[in-house]
């Protein structure tokens, strides 16, 4: 199933070409990200308007000096109780104390769900589109791919989450203990953890790519296939992920240090524009990596996915 003829650079270039060719896929994922974030932001934004919208203090918070606001929000329920004593005049709500805390908790609870479900859904369509390059983008085919692999990728997401905890919590604890025992071990522990994270990410992404390319919803078989592929082509995969990480690093450097660091936060339309461009670029860098993975595990660049027979 592997494509030994493709090297890291070719896979990266192929991934880039597919991302550029299927701009709809990119935009769909961006729309999913924006919609999910808007859904999450709606209640806190309304709460902010109700609590601080008429307070000049919001200007200072908007300028970025907001440690005091976080502190006041955290201790707001306590202060509410304190101000209840000896108060003669009711005051318009500020953060609404307990309400603000509830909003934060609700948003934090909804965040993983909104990160997981929509992306688990669209993953099938995205990878199928890349696997069938250079065919033209077809909406029905895209949605069919989304639906066909939704259950499998949901399961894979749960497994990935549990396995990640089982893998990284002990690894992280061991690294912290090692660094606490001898500071110089940080030079080994931190790169080791990073390598482990990259390898784990590659394994999970290749599992999804393998499932699509083989047209299977059996994630165990796909996982075994991906593991075997990475084992046989470790350097090629490492090269692709190295290039993808380098791209991501450049995107971060350009936006975070080059652009955003110099933007006044109160110029919000410009800030919004730059921020969304960054999200788009970050998403693009990730898609290049995913499309590159498909190019690596596909039997031949541009080959029809095995799953096509199943689709009418």
């Amino acid at each position, binding site marked *: 199933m592997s494509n030994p003829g493709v090297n890291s650079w070719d896979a990266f270039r192929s991934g880039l070409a597919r991302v550029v060719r299927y701009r709809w896929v990119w935009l769909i994922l961006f729309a999913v990200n924006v919609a999910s974030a808007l859904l999450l932001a709606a209640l806190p934004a309304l709460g902010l308007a109700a609590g601080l919208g008429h307070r000049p203090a919001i200007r200072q918070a908007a300028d970025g000096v907001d440690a005091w606001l976080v502190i006041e929000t955290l201790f707001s329920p306590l202060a509410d109780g304190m101000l209840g004593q000896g108060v003669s005049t009711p005051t318009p709500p500020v953060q609404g104390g307990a309400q603000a805390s509830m909003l934060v908790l609700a948003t934090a609870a909804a965040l993983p769900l909104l990160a997981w479900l929509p992306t688990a859904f669209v993953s099938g369509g995205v990878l199928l589109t890349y696997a069938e390059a250079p065919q033209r983008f077809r909406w029905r085919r895209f949605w069919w791919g989304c639906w066909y692999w939704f259950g499998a990728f949901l399961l894979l997401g749960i497994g990935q989450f549990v396995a990640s905890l089982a893998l990284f919590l002990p690894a992280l604890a061991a690294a912290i203990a090692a660094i*606490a025992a001898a500071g110089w071990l940080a030079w080994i522990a931190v790169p080791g953890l990073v390598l482990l994270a990259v390898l784990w990410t590659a394994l999970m992404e290749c599992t999804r790519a393998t499932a699509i390319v083989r047209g299977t919803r059996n994630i165990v078989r796909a996982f075994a296939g991906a593991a075997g592929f990475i084992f046989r082509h470790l350097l090629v995969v490492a090269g692709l992920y190295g290039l993808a990480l380098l791209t991501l690093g450049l995107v971060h450097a350009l936006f975070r240090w080059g652009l955003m660091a110099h933007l006044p936060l109160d110029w919000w339309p410009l800030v919004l524009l730059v921020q969304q461009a960054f999200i788009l670029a970050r998403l693009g860098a990730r898609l290049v990596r995913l499309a590159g993975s498909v190019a690596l595990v596909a039997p031949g660049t541009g080959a029809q996915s095995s799953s096509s027979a199943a689709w009418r």
Partner: protein
Amino acid sequence: MTAQPRISRVLTRLSLASCILLLASCLLPPLQAHAAPPTPIASYTIAVTLDAETKTLTAHEVVTYTNTTADPIPDLVFHLYLNAFRDSSSIFLTEGAAGSRSFGWDPEHPGWIQVTDIRLAGAGEYTGSPLALEEIEDGTLARAGLPKPIAPGESVEVVLDFRAQLPRVVARTGYTDDFFMVGQWFPKLGVWQQGAWNAHLFHANAEFYADFGTYDVTITLPTGYVTGGTGLPLSKVDNGDGTQTVRYRAENVIDFAWAASPHFQEVSRQVDGIAPPGRGLGADGIAPPGRGLGAAVEVVYLVLPEHAWTVERALDAAEAAVRHFGQWYGPYPYARLTVVDVPDDGQGAGGMEYPTLVTAGTVGVPRLWGVRMLEVVVVHEVGHQWWQSMVAFNEAEEPWLDEGFTDYATVRAMDAIYGPETSLVQAGGLRMGYLDLRRAEYMSAPRVAMYGRAWDFQGLEYDIAAYSKPALALSTLERMLGEERMLEVMRTFFQRYQYAHPTTEDFRAVAEETCGQDLAWFFDGLVYGDGTVNYTVVRVDEHQATVARQGAPSTTGREAASGQALVIPTEVLVTFTDGSTVLEPWDGIQAEVTLSYPDRPPVRSAEVDPQRKVLVDLRWADNGLSRTLEVSPWLALVTRLLYNLQNALLALGGMVAGE
């Protein structure tokens, strides 16, 4: 001492003689010096031997006590602090069962001190007379009756032999493996004042109180150990039997502590002399005897190898602290300042101040992140050189003075060195000032008066009363008076009470005299009172703004303060739709005030305390109110929220779904 984590009458007289003394001090090895040397009241000469295997001390101590009061003194009362760790029934361990300092007391490795002999010396007919030493309650105090009272102006010499078992590190003192932090280790006299000994049993939250004197301490310990101690090391002799003897001497100090470890590495830095602007000489132009103003200070850091990464950070912080405090309050008059690193399993010894010696601490201090707890601890402990070691408050009876003044000074120094918004945390987009931390702590339980004895407070209350609230209150006072005026208050207080034991009321007198104002709002409201305050704007109409003072009245304090609301004078900024503004003073006495502007354009917004001077205000967010929605800042915040959520979604999506 810090919560985890808890300055010179400069110059007085000028004469030819003092110039000669100054010159001599440059030619001879300097010992300790001071701007206005006090009469030594309690001086100690101690020869101590450390048995590093059994962790015991064997010592011979000579105490010279001079009665500078008008009372005849019939007896002597000694602190025997180490007996707090003898067994679990001590007041210290009973009170501090849940306290951080007593945490880790190990009954298998207790501490104690036993005086094996005590006699009078140099007392004429009574020379050599043994004295009866009677332990008081849990044994952390002991009284020795005298055959005749010490008359005013008379001195008495007492010779003691004692043995002490050091505990595993607990409450500032003890050992871990071959690290020794030896504090509160010798029989030490209380302070005679107002016709009685001011000496309290060792309480969990309490610290120390002692008279100034000269310490000459000779320590014998195994060779290979590196030591640090109060004052200056005078000599180091290899005894040829596997032991060495080091000698320290310190003048005009209230205590002596020392540390030893074979693993210490000594690094040092010379800090140039510091003098407050225009205060190089005293009012009459006299340079201080001993060492001249502007003499250099050697900052020594005894660091353990595993904490080598702290060297530059700790030295930078210590140097900056010495410079700032020297400029603000008065020069550091001693030649040396030693900072002692403590091992990870001995953090109970960290974050403590002694004259010319402080301990730092590293556990919980993320090394790779921009969290400056190490710097906070160092700056805070160095601050105690001014506000405890030189201006020696009664830490047991008025803990807010030494910890509060020091923490306020720490806030100032941290802000000056690292920036007000980043003085505690500066990691990526995370920023937090040290004052923010103190405000957060205060807001967790603000109904606490600052004034009180150490044992009046429980748990977090003590931290708030002694650290957070004083830091906020004094910073508020500074913002009210202005920086220069506040510095003048602090400098005057320091100069007047260097080498003395001032009280809260002494500070009140100096503050009100220096700034020429009645500061009842500060002293009755914040120091003695536990009331809370929140300033807010409750309504803004077209031509009116209604402001209110909320909060709980005080339940503590003196007659005048008890039951009263906390009222802090402030200002109201009213902004009109044409952009013009009016800044109105508001004494805060009336709980609610409506300001009317019938002849001006419509009011756009009103804000109480627009410059955020009142740091004890429970809620800054409601200090202002606008008639219309603040659309642009709201959108700016929503934009930022959206962006952060998008990034979080991408990160989490990568983990669980891999789009």
